[in-house]
Every structure is written in C-alpha cells, then in structure tokens.
C-alpha cells in the first residue's frame, strides 16, 4: 500500500495563554507539536505499512519551520516527507489548503490518504473531505476502526452521533481519523536517527503544478474580518463575603431558581 498522511504543525493547545488585558494570544515560548489527531493518522498509516508493506509519505503545508513536524513523523515510522512551502501559499483558508494538498497528492498517487479528523488550532474538520473532493475520490470521516483492507477496497467503522456505521469504500480513499482508532507509538531510536539524516523534500507551487489563482490568499474565499475576546455579561453579580456568606448567597439564589 502506498499511503499519504497529511499533517499540520500546531501550537501546543495546553500552553497557549491569553493576555487578560488586551485579549490577545500569548504565543511566545509555546512549543509547536504535530496536531494530536494527526498522530493517530501517522500511527494508522505506519500500522498499515507494517501489515501490508509499502511506503508512507507525510506531507504538510507551512513555513520552513514545519520541517521539524515532518522529521518527528519520520521518527515515528514515516518513510518520506514533503514540505509544501512557498510565499504563494500564505493566507490559505481550508479550500486553498485542500487544493494545494490535493495537487501534491496527485503526484504521489497513493492508495490511501489519512488525515486527523481536525487540527486543534482551527478545529474546522474541513480539509480532509475537501481534499477528497478535489481528488475526486471517496472519503470516510471520523474513522474509529479499520476492519479490513483488501486489494481494491477497505472496510472501516465511522463514528456517528448515536453509534457507528460500518462503511466499505473503494480504493483510493481518504480517511479522517479519531483518537479511538489507536494509541500512537513513541518514536524509536532508529527512527530518530533516520529523522536526523532524512532529506525533506521542499515543493513549491510550481513543483506541484498549482494554478496561482487557486492557492494562498487568492484561492481563499473566506477571510478573517477581525478577532476579538468575548464580551463580558452585563448582568453579572459577584457574591462577596466570607466563604460561608458566599455559599449562603448562592443557596438563596438556587432556591429562588427553584433548583432546591
């Protein structure tokens, strides 16, 4: 099986803080990690490779610094890595990102493409299905188990609101995966040593034959108008006093609300 994993480098969510005065983000010193859902995508790809043999290629779109995410992916068992980096990609929304990734994947002609269900910085969950549409291949979102992989088809469980569906798809297919799918492994020493030496291919818009009007800002129909911190509620009431007085005041309120 020839497998492509799409990954994204994100700031570690647990470390991001907000400046309470300005309402803006403090990203200084926040470490960059592989998007946690993508870790499960990598694990799934490596497991399939181990079972069926073949090759796993990780791709990411981002600034040159995103190379570290690709090296980390190699330490986890990925064979090759491609960094899509080009000034022309700046300002991409999900549509432009999906287009760019799909142009790259076309060149690799994989049997299976695996993505995390969403990235923890954007939380949109759009890129996977949009890439599948651009490639004109089927996709299955929210995969929680891979039941069987055949020569030409795959059977998986897809998480739904009230349970799960067993879905069969032809290959090639794109899967987006949830955390229940597997337990990502830790890197191996051999993997880490390979990652240190590995050559990370750097592809630009020209390398993937992307149309410049479809990438980056030009290819992005959505725009961020502004960002803001939520407004405080106007009718807020602080319950003051000793802990006992505060508790009594709260109980009074709960009784007024007929909660007690």
């Amino acid at each position, binding site marked *: 099986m020839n497998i492509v994993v799409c990954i994204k480098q994100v700031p570690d969510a647990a470390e991001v803080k907000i400046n309470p005065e300005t309402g803006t983000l403090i990203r200084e010193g926040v470490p960059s990690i592989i998007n946690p859902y993508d870790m499960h995508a990598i694990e799934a790809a490596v497991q399939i490779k181990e079972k069926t043999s073949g090759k796993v290629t990780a791709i990411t779109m981002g600034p040159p610094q995103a190379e570290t995410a690709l090296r980390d992916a190699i330490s986890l068992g990925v064979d090759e890595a491609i960094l899509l980096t080009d000034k022309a990609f700046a300002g991409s929304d999900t549509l432009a990102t999906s287009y760019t990734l799909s142009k790259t994947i076309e060149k690799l002609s994989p049997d299976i493409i695996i993505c995390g269900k969403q990235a923890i910085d954007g939380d949109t969950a759009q890129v996977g299905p949009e890439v599948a549409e651009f490639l004109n291949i089927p996709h299955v979102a929210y995969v929680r188990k891979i039941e069987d992989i055949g020569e030409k088809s795959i059977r998986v469980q897809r998480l739904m609101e009230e349970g799960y569906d067993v879905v069969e798809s032809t290959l090639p297919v794109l899967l987006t995966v949830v955390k229940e799918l597997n337990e990502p*492994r*830790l*890197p*191996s*020493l*051999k993997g*880490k*040593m390979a990652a*240190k030496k590995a050559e990370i291919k750097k592809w630009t818009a020209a390398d993937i034959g992307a149309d410049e009007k479809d990438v980056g800002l030009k290819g992005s129909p959505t725009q961020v108008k502004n960002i803001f911190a939520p407004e405080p509620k106007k009718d807020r009431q602080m319950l003051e006093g000793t802990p006992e007085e505060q508790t009594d005041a709260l109980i009074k309120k709960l009784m007024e609300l007929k909660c007690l």
Partner: protein
Amino acid sequence: MDYFLTEEQVMIRDLARQIAEEKIVPQREELDEKEEFPWDIMKVLAQSDMFGLFIPEEYGGLGKGCLELAIAVEELSRACLGVSTTYAANALGTYPLLLYGSEEQKKKYLPDIAAGKKLVAFGLTEANAGSDAAGIQTTAKLEGNEYVLNGTKQWITNGGEAEIYTIIAMTDKSKGARGASAFIVEKGTPGFSFGKKEKKMGIRASTTRELIFENCRIPKENIIGREGMGFIVAMKTLDNSRVGVGAQGVGVAQGAFDEAVKFARQRVQFGHPIISFQAIQHMLADMATQIEAARALVYSVARYIDSGAKDISKASAMAKLFATDMAMKVTVDAVQVMGGSGYMREYPVEKMMRDAKILQIYEGTNQIQRNVIGQALIKEAAKKK
C-alpha cells in the same frame, strides 16, 4: 551538570525520559500494588529500540555501549525501579552471549533480543550459592550430543517471563570454580520449569522466580564458550552489568530527590514553604551533591568500559557500591523531608525507598563489592613492588 553527552546520547536520554514520564509514571503505583509484570511497557521499550541499544548493528541493534545503556537505565529508574530492573536484567542475561557467544549463537538469538521480541534472564544464584558462587549445585552432564541439566536456580529476575535463559551449571564438580560452564536454555525445553513467583519488599513490578531443571536436555551447541569457562563468563558479565546497577541507583535517587524538592516547595509550615528552612535545605543540598558524585562516577566508569579497558572489575564495583549506597541514603532522606506524607503510599517516595534496598543486595551485595575492590587493591599493591 553537563556531561558532554553526544547528540545521540542526548536523543537516547530524551526518549527514555519520555517513555518514563508518559508510560511508566502513570502506571507505577498500580504495578507495585498488584505486583504485575509490565508487559505493555516492555512493548513500548521494544518499539522504541531500547532493547537493541547495546547490541551490535550487525545483529539488528544500535551498537552502543555501556554509557548509553546506563543513561537509559537511569531515566527508567527515575520513574520505577521495578520496570528498570526488568529492563536491566535483560541486558544482564544477554551479556554472556554478547561477550562469549559463538557467531551462530549470536545470529540465532541477538536479533530477537534486540527487537525486544524475546526477553532474557541470567541464572547464577542458587539456595546455597549466592555470594559464594563456587557453591553452585546445578549440574550439566554431557550425554552424546546433549547436555542434561539438573538443579534449581533461585531468585531469578525475569524468570518465567523471559524466553531465553543464560545459565551457569557445573560440568565438572571436582574442578570447583573451574568446573562451571555457561549454557543457553530456551523456555519450553522439556524438563525446564518455574517455581512460584516470589513476594518481594520492593521492585514488585519485576518478576522473580525459581528455575527448575529436571533432566532438562539441551543441544550440545548451547554451551557458551567452552567447558570450564562458566565463572569467567559470569564474572565478566557482572563486571559489565554492575555499572548499570549503579545507574539504577542514580536514577531512583534522582526520582526521590525531585519529589522531595517539589514537596518542600509546596508544603507550608510556620507560614513558609519548608524549603526555606535551612534544616531542609541542608538535607537537599547533601542529597543533590551525593547524586551528582555518583552520576559522575557511573558515567566515568561506563566510559572507561566503553574504551575497551580490560580490567574493569574494581571500577565497576566502585560504581555499583557508591551509587547504590547513595541511593539508599537519598531515598530514606527523601521520605524524611516529606515527613508523614513521604511515608504514605499516596506519594511515590516510600516505594522508591523500598525499591532502592535491592540495589545494595543484587548482582553482588555491597559487601562483596568491597571484597572485589579490596582484592584489586592488594593485586595493584603487589604489582608495584
């Protein structure tokens, strides 16, 4: 302190630390309580290539030495000595093969060991042969193309869990120590069985069992080296592995020290965190100094062994002796710094103190280490004359 580790050594340390923090710390309390063998952690160690660390590259390992192994053992020991004992005992069982095994034996066994597919155990100790290794009663008799083993090994770490056993048995009792030989015995060989799992004071995640041989027949080619080399095999093995026990001491002491510092910063008495009191500061200062001294010694000895030095008995005995006596003292002091909390099972330091005790006992008690050092001193002095 900076020990000028290479980039690869730092990589090994970081990965071992990640395994310790993410996989071992969350489980250690339960493993200790339930006296459970940590199979899933062994799987993680295998997947991370940790079992291949000191095995040559031609057999699927990473070809690293004593120092790298010591670094990994130290990090694992910081989290749980039970887990690190399992890991270190695997190395102990592998050394006879590595040092004296034939090409065929290495080809046959080392790749699986490096991949972590098969665990190894070392069988030397018996009921009447602990510190006095010459008292070994297990016999191996050559009958045609087979050796027939009879006897019982006692307190064998990884016993029952391991697939491969390196065993010391007497091929010629009349020759005393020169009549011992080393063998490879695989689990499942007819006549080879296990006694009950021992209940221990500490390192309860590790398994300790008897190995029972009753007319156990193994192929003649399973002898390691030649007949009569058993003691040399055992002694050289211990010379190499002792520095690892020292690393265990450094690790568990560091783990206990870290907990004590964390606690002392949080615990408030007389209106101040107790770390602000000189009584506590002085204890912590002594602990930190002793740990660093032990680490410096362990790393130096490991580097000395890796340099290819021949006579390593004294140095490795010193590393084991100093670092493990230190570990006992520091873990006791960590409990003391934490007072009543330290004594409670809610905190990890009482376990570390229980665990640390074994380090002064196994792979040669610290009294025996002093004997080894003492004998080396006599030899050295005699040479000078």
